[in-house]
């Protein structure tokens, strides 16, 4: 029986990063992956969807080319080629991960892993079964779309993101249930391709995790592009007739029904905890996901859980970071516990949305006295140059200590801007560190500076 210091179950952004780090620290490491290395992120999530959204964004830009003095004869798209491009990017990155794991001497087992005891794992592959001995196990099995009863996907009229990112043709109309990042990104993508899109959200605001103010701006912007929204809804039923889905729901207490060619369910995810053999261990579950300590340790001391299977936020970068924490803990180092308030979240729609830390509402509820700054895109030179004057950067400071409690932004390329605040939060910078920073002109990043100046009542450009 082959022995490993660490066996990682799942080769997604949590698992493969954990495996590489473990190997770097001198631990003999194996990864078990049942489908594709890279996990959802590379194959069915982050990467391919962003590739699709880039095509959509470019299409929109080309439609506005005349504003830039450029004439295009005919604008059109081929959904097959758009999808192919996204598949090729995924394939390239998956190949890259294989190479990285090989370079770092991580053994990869293809198949499904089952924990037999806290020290042993059986991998069932296509045509063989291998027993492995493990000093430590890291569960990184991720999650899958949450399915609501009566709204099970059928791959034809009722989709999850899997179908949505590989459509064979473009439907005329889509109803998206759920307005988190996944729902909004697909709404934005299909809207850009000319599809009639309606979004249903159970919460009172779209993008329920985002700051209310940003959410309202986003809603207005999407509505101006033709997306329809119903918030505060309660799903009742769906019926499929003549290749059309009819969805019935309660909106403000009144029954309402809509139909469309496709119903896209994006109502969150469910942790993959089944068939893992957890019953053979002391690992405990908490509301569907594996319960872990600040260093990702489960109730079974040598078993760790990271990423989506260990709970929200369901983000690839959170999974990767937890992978590092878990491995460093295994290696006897003293890793720092994950601070969830320092994890940024991004939505790659047009306009983009990015945020880190507390929303205004949460900060107020936590009892802080706030200093809030806002800087709009229309007052930024680079935004005018890009032709993207829609959006704002909002910063929230603790008035007493100058701690950046939260930053929230909407607009062009904000997903590439949020890191400035992320680094500062991680270093525990205070308002002075922003105020005294010199940012390059002309860039969108100048708004990071100006928003803080505005919080402290001394903006220059507004």
């Amino acid at each position, binding site marked *: 029986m082959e022995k490993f210091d660490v066996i990682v179950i799942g080769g997604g952004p949590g698992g493969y990063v954990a495996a590489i780090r473990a190997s770097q620290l001198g631990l003999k490491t194996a990864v078990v992956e049942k489908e594709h290395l890279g996990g959802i992120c590379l194959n069915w999530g982050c990467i391919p969807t962003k590739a699709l959204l880039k095509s959509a964004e470019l299409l929109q830009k080309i439609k506005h080319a005349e504003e830039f003095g450029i004439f295009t004869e005919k604008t059109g798209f081929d959904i097959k080629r758009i999808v192919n491009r996204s598949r090729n990017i995924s394939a390239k990155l998956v190949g890259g991960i294989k190479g990285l794991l090989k370079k770092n001497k991580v053994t990869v087992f293809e198949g499904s892993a089952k924990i037999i005891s806290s020290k042993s794992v059986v991998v069932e592959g296509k045509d063989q079964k291998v027993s492995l001995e493990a000093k430590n196990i890291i569960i990184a099995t991720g999650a899958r779309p949450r399915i609501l009863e009566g709204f099970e996907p059928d791959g034809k009229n009722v989709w999850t993101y899997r179908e949505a990112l590989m459509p064979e043709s473009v439907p005329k109309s889509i109803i998206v249930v759920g307005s988190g990042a996944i729902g909004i990104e697909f709404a934005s993508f299909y809207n850009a391709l000319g599809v009639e899109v309606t979004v249903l959200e159970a919460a009172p605001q779209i993008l329920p995790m985002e700051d209310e103010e940003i959410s309202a701006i986003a809603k207005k912007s999407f509505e101006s592009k033709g997306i329809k929204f119903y918030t505060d809804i309660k799903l009742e039923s769906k019926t499929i007739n003549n290749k059309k889905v009819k969805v019935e729901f309660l909106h403000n207490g009144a029954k309402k029904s809509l139909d469309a060619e496709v119903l896209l369910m994006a109502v969150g995810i469910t942790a993959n905890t089944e068939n893992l053999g957890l019953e053979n261990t002391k690992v405990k579950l908490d509301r569907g996901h594996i319960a872990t300590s600040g260093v990702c340790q489960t109730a079974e001391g040598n078993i760790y859980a990271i990423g989506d299977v260990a709970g929200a936020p369901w983000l690839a970068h959170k999974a990767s970071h937890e992978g590092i924490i878990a491995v460093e803990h295994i290696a006897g180092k003293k890793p*720092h516990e994950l601070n969830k308030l320092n994890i940024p979240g991004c939505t790659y729609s047009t306009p983009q949305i990015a945020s880190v830390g507390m929303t205004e509402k949460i900060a107020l509820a936590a009892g802080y006295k706030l200093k809030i700054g806002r800087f709009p895109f229309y007052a930024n030179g680079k935004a005018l140059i890009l032709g993207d004057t829609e959006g704002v950067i909002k910063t929230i400071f603790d008035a007493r*200590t100058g*701690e950046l409690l939260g930053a929230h932004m909407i607009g062009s390329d904000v997903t590439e801007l949020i890191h400035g605040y992320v680094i500062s939060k991680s270093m*525990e*910078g*205070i308002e002075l560190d922003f105020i005294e920073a010199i940012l390059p002109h002309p860039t969108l990043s100048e708004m990071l500076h100006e928003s803080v100046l505005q919080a402290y009542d001394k903006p220059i450009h507004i």
Partner: protein
Amino acid sequence: MPIKILMPALSPTMTEGNLAKWVKKEGEKISAGEVIAEIETDKATMEVEAVDEGIIAKILVPEGTEGVQVNSLIAVLVEEDEQDADLDTFIAKFSTSQKPVEKIVEEKTGEPDKMKPASISAPTSTSVQGVSTNKRIFASPLAKRIAALEGISLSNIMGSGPYGRIIKNDVLSAAKNSKGTIRRDNEEYRLVPNNNMRKVIAKRLLESKLTVPHFYLSIECVMDSVLNARAQINSSFDSDKDKRLSVNDFIILACAKALKEVPTANASWTDSAIKLYNNVDISIAVAIEGGLITPIIKDADQKDIVKISTEMKDLAKRARENALAPEEFQGGGFSISNLGMYGIKSFSAIVNPPQGCIMAVGMSSKRPVVIDDKIEIRTIMDVTLSCDHRVVDGAVGAEFLAAFKKYIEAPILMFV
């Protein structure tokens, strides 16, 4: 030819001072009459004005330098077209020709090797530096800010951040712990350098206690009438609250009237004669940051209560701003120190040399007193006179206090 800027003497007796601040920097153009620096003397900070115009070519005495001898070279001024080369020889020449500068170097560095050339920067060795000998503490900006807000020393906190850096949570848990448990500071004490004022207070009061034979007389004054009078006068100032009189204003006036009546209490000791002052100039102790100062109400016997009040307010305000001119706090024949506002019932002050007496004033409070064999409530203020027995005998002191008591208890007498 470069122009010398020398340490000025801001009073006839000044021999040295501290260069508190340079208002102008090297390379800055100045014109005659502009303020170029601030000099701290015994008790006040004074501005130094430029006499000539030109460019400050070199500052030789950095700000914060203590004990700069009067007439030592502190900076050099050049005209706009002059060259730097002249400057070094010019400074060198001045430094070697000036005994006082060399003397500072010897005294302050305490080095036996006197062959060293007079180093211009040497006087800084006595400055505030060297108080803190800490090694660098790594802490996040937020941790530093919270530590400052909570009044927690970072030197006691173990950092849990990257490479042992102190982060927010470390400070917050230290703040939390500091409430319940005893946390001993690793540093046993910290040093606050003595400024000139502290040194003067130490020197003069030590001299007083060592050389002045003190004795103390206490008396109770019934304050109801004067409080009444004050209330009546102040109610007429309703529209102008700044004009309102304080009890202290009445005390000054009563004291002035009593000194006029018992002039032998307004006196100083000298070896050959007792100096009896012809004018009634009363020094009032005012607490300011880092010490105290005694601005003077001159000719207090000839001023009315409103004049005394406005003068006192102005002097106290400027005292706290370090903006008194030397003649406003140097001199005086008699002192008053009032700690009533702190709730002090009575205390004995140290005679302020060369003056012969200081009157310590306590808090006015309602107390039971026996009047015509009955216990009644009166507002009472305790006053203690400290006297230099060489100048003032017990009987003279008692006479003065009796006169003071007469005026403060029947304030109408002060106005006749």
